[in-house]
């Protein structure tokens, strides 16, 4: 029963994370295109007015001043959240050549050690370091968006601990898988 709940909450959490990632990439594209469009429109308006023509009032007069900052901050979130998803899908680049040289038992052991290293990475840098830097920057206002909507640099850094939590979840899950597969192998023997 509780295993079922666990499984369901895992699926919901993963969906949430993936949806956030997909939306972030989508907004990223639209935002930068908006930046190009507004700048193009700005140049057009300037060109028209140099010929004494008044452009329609709805045409943006120059590049949107938020588009660049939104894009950079979103990239930070995409990178960190996507990084967590990549741990879940084992998509990160590694060098598996040497491990392949060991026998099965040693491979299991090495895999566990590797997963412990990933846990250390997630906890020390993403959770501890990330929480610290987010908290330290809660007064630091973002240059363009800060005055407008009260965005602080700390909010940008919040992606670190959030991604960290997911990394830990995925890694612990994979560790359990590795451990359980060892046991079932023993039973076979």
């Amino acid at each position, binding site marked *: 029963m509780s295993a079922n709940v666990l499984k369901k909450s895992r699926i919901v959490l993963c969906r949430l994370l993936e949806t956030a990632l997909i939306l972030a*990439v989508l907004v990223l594209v639209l935002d930068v295109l908006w930046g190009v469009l507004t700048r193009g429109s700005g140049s057009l308006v300037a060109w028209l007015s140099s010929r004494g023509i008044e452009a329609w009032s709805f045409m943006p007069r120059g590049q949107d001043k938020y588009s660049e900052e939104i894009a950079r901050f979103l990239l930070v979130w995409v990178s960190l959240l*996507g990084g967590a998803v990549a741990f879940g899908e084992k998509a990160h680049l590694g*060098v598996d050549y040497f491990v392949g040289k060991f026998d099965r038992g040693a491979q299991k052991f090495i895999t566990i050690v590797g997963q412990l290293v990933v846990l250390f990475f997630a906890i020390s840098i993403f959770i501890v370091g990330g929480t610290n830097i987010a908290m330290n920057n809660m007064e630091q206002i973002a240059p363009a968006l800060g005055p407008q909507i009260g965005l602080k640099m700390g909010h940008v850094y919040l992606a670190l601990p959030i991604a960290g939590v997911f990394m830990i979840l995925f890694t612990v899950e994979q560790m359990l898988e590795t451990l359980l597969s060892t046991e079932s192998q023993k039973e076979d023997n």
Partner: protein
Amino acid sequence: MGAVALVLVLVFVLLLVINVPIAVAIAVAAFVAIMSNGMDPSVMLASKMANGVNSFALLAIPFFILSGHLMGRGGMARRLIDFANSLVGMLPGGLAYVNTLTCMMFGSISGSASAAVSSVGGFMIPEMNRMGYNREFNVAVTTTAATTGLLIPPSNIMIVYSVAAGSVSIAAMFMAGVLPGIITGLFIMVVCGYFAFRNKYGAGERVSFKQACLSFVNAIMSLLLIIIVIGGILIGFFTATEAAAVAVLYSYLLTVVIYREIKLKDIPDILKQTGITTAVVMLLIGASSGMSWIMTMANIPQTVSSALINLSDNPIVILLTINLLLLFVGTFMDMTPAVLIFTPIFLPVVQLLGMHQIHFGIMLIANLCIGLCTPPVGTCLFIGCGVGKTTIAKVTKYMLPFFGAMAVALMVITYVPRVSLWLPVKTGQLKAQEVEQSIEKWNESIYGHKSDSE
């Protein structure tokens, strides 16, 4: 100082060997090294991980990945093959040239050598098998030709290099890669020609003029992407990032709206894959910015420089050594981490020799392209063998002449700076005066020294 460097290298190599993800290996090695230097690593590295990717220039990477995904899934391979076929298909051994040419175009547009191998190879290798070409030869052509797309712009690895090298213009890198990419492709075609002659491969049918025109129109819709991106950057209207975003819009219109080869319901999955691929690269970049900070603190680049210069004071030998080291690294490490790790180490050395940073970047990428096709770890080779249903052991014999071609191209790229620097000067991405000075210093350090020692 030496101890910190030693800790960094030891931890990194150990973690690599036990197959920890490279980004984690870099970050944890930097963590231990910073700690052994008596500082608090947690906050430092957390800030590097986030701020290392807080850059507008890097945004071009997800966009090129996304447009590559869209174009790749949208039937671009077939259209490019038809076009290449109408150009070179009628030559003896024509399909080999068609394959090479298509890989160059596809690799450029999709920005991914692996995608070029699987998409172009998935179609061309069975076709070549059917026409009586040797299976292993077909895999070897596809695998090596696919890597040329990394030199021909647009190319994400060049953006990664620009970031790793500091303030290097992405537009200049793009222009610098054009000739080296084409030269490498031509050398590969020369090897194809030799095999075609020796094995008496037949010529394909000559395509009727009308059909050729049709295939050109179909292909130009895909090739227009390169023209929009490069043209937009050259005119100065776009930054690389904006050009990449426009490329996404264009690929979307082409594949979803016009050709309708991609359904709207496929889009979320494509966006997710883009997010993941992007994150893999970005995590590497973030971790590397932490590592290069501690490397600079521990004077590692200077140590390597002086070691290399002590080894020999002949620049030709130093460059050869660097190339051999990179070839070795490339056999078991992927391109992105290799560029991120070795740029800060080797760039200061070669700059002492007068090598332009754009020139070094192109050499580095051309070198690591070879590593993508070599065992034990060669992404393109693995995919090629999978697509061609053969084994690495069987392919290796046929790969050797192609490695030869790539190595010769690499030597040309390494020792003839103008191959990389001529075009960016012509298109105004680099200042002629600055480049001339750098080439003069380079010639002096190579030839000036030669005459001294003789």
